């Protein structure tokens, strides 16, 4: 059994998600190789080679992989797939984009967002916004899997895999990357932050989110949001936590002015400690909160900032 993990990175640094996917991949048994496809990715390859459990890193350094668009990346993965029993990627927007494309080209029914590996062919995955957990056994000879990274610990950095350069696959040339508008922030990324403070519609404006920023800065936290807050334009789309946004599981999640809809809970209910601040004591968010404060957020949040010193 040999598994190919597709690395998640930005050409400069390896994303933490990859170390978690490697942990899931080692649970399949057998060898784990990592594919780093990108442009100017020597540092990424070196970081991948350090992950415990990885025996080989394949590096495809080519302009067509610079943005990891689905068509060329899927073509590359398919060209390598003959040597592998399983292909595993993080359930990030990159993984969700290319993996099903590769799976279809291989005539494989992908298994999306696994949260547990029962055996090399049997996995647990959430359905219905995490309100049910399905155990599925794949009958395909080859597996294509995406991994929900919050449920797997990161592999240690104690490895020393070999690094092998490989050529690019033929570029399908179907699309062209034009531009990217990435949210700049000095705070930790949502999916790897230990503490998250999220705001909902109750925040009333983007300006009011600065109240949460101040607390985030004191706690070293990331700032998230509900869909309603994103839809209203208070914060950018990449803040959204939930069934169709980001799934997070920090040590501490503070929900401010968020009602607790099923779709929001789906993205944060595996957090270790949940705090809810809401003026409506009936809000469903209190049903999952370890500590609930029924209060007007416009009083409670500044008071919280003060109290944190």
């Amino acid at each position, binding site marked *: 059994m040999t598994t190919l993990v597709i690395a998640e990175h930005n050409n400069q640094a390896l994303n933490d998600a990859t170390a978690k996917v490697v942990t899931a991949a080692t649970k399949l048994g057998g060898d784990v190789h990592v594919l780093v496809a990108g442009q100017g990715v020597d540092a990424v390859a070196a970081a991948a080679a350090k992950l415990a459990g990885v025996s080989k890193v394949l590096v495809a350094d080519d302009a067509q992989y610079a943005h990891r*668009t*689905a*068509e060329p990346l899927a073509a590359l993965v398919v060209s390598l797939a003959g040597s592998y029993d399983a292909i595993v990627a993080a359930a*990030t*927007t990159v993984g*969700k*984009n290319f993996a*099903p*494309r590769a*799976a*279809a*080209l291989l*005539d*494989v*029914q*992908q298994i*999306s967002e696994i949260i547990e590996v029962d055996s090399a062919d*049997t996995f647990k995955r*959430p*359905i*219905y*916004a*995490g*309100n*049910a*957990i*399905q*155990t*599925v056994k*794949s009958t*395909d000879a080859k597996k294509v899997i995406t991994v929900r990274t919050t449920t797997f610990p990161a592999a240690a950095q104690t490895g020393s895999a070999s690094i092998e350069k490989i050529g690019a696959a033929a570029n*399908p040339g*179907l*699309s*062209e*990357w*034009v*531009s*990217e508008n*990435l*949210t700049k922030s000095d705070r930790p990324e949502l999916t790897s932050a230990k*503490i998250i403070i999220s705001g909902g519609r109750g925040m009333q404006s983007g300006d009011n989110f600065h109240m949460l920023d101040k607390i985030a800065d004191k706690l070293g936290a990331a700032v998230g949001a509900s869909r309603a807050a*994103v839809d209203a334009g208070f914060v950018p*789309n*990449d803040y959204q936590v939930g*069934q*169709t946004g*980001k799934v997070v599981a920090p040590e*501490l999640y503070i929900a401010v002015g968020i009602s607790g809809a099923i779709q929001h809970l789906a993205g944060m209910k595996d957090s270790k*400690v*949940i*705090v809810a601040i809401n003026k409506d004591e009936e809000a469903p968010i*209190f*049903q*999952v909160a*370890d*500590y*609930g*404060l029924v209060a007007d957020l416009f009083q409670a949040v500044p008071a*919280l900032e003060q109290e944190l010193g």
Partner: protein
Amino acid sequence: MKVLVPVKRVVDYNVKIRVKSDQTGVDLANVKMSMNPFDEIAIEEAVRLKEAGKATEVIAVSIGVAQSTETIRTALAMGADRGILVKSDETVEPLAVAKILKAIVEAEKPDLVVLGKQAIDDDSNQTGQMLAALLGWPQGTFASKVEFEGDKLLLTREIDGGLQTLKLNMPAVITTDLRLNEPRYASLPNIMKAKKKPIDEKTPADYGVDVTARLQVLKVTEPPQRQAGIKVESVEQLVAKLKEAGVIG
């Protein structure tokens, strides 16, 4: 330009589902069913293209049980021109759905297929990508803006770090994200009109697609439930509790 929109009948997003006690699945008896919310966005986008004079015809397709006709009728009431129901009482997995859609694309020759990014029942997020693969077409997933530039499609996508813009060759497959548009409610006259619009009925066999499941569902269980917590009286008490729990310094 002809536009094809696959629409799935799913448990309404407001319903809190229950897992069956024998662990064979989710209880769907007497549960409100609706069109997958992302597919409403897909229909809306297609209908807007038609209203803008860019699309000539919008075809809604649903694969599933007979009642999926209702989902197609909703799409027709929103402005789609005709429907195709591919009837199956078995669960059809994304790969098989994509194969059926590929056959429909080959028969109907649309220039654009607009799908939802994810069905909120299976949460797979696969079908559009798989269809694009099988057709050898480009894919624009998680779209928040769709524009045309000459014979290309300029598509803005929601990605983990923010937004990305791609230029796609046509024909293309796109999948919708939440902020692409706000779907309309069908008006009563349009609901009446939709009743007269044609719906073709087919089966997977008509398209030569084997829908045998590749994933065997061994069991479906409840997720672990969180313990009910406590209400704190003040911000001071909250901070004290969090320090006690060791989650803040």
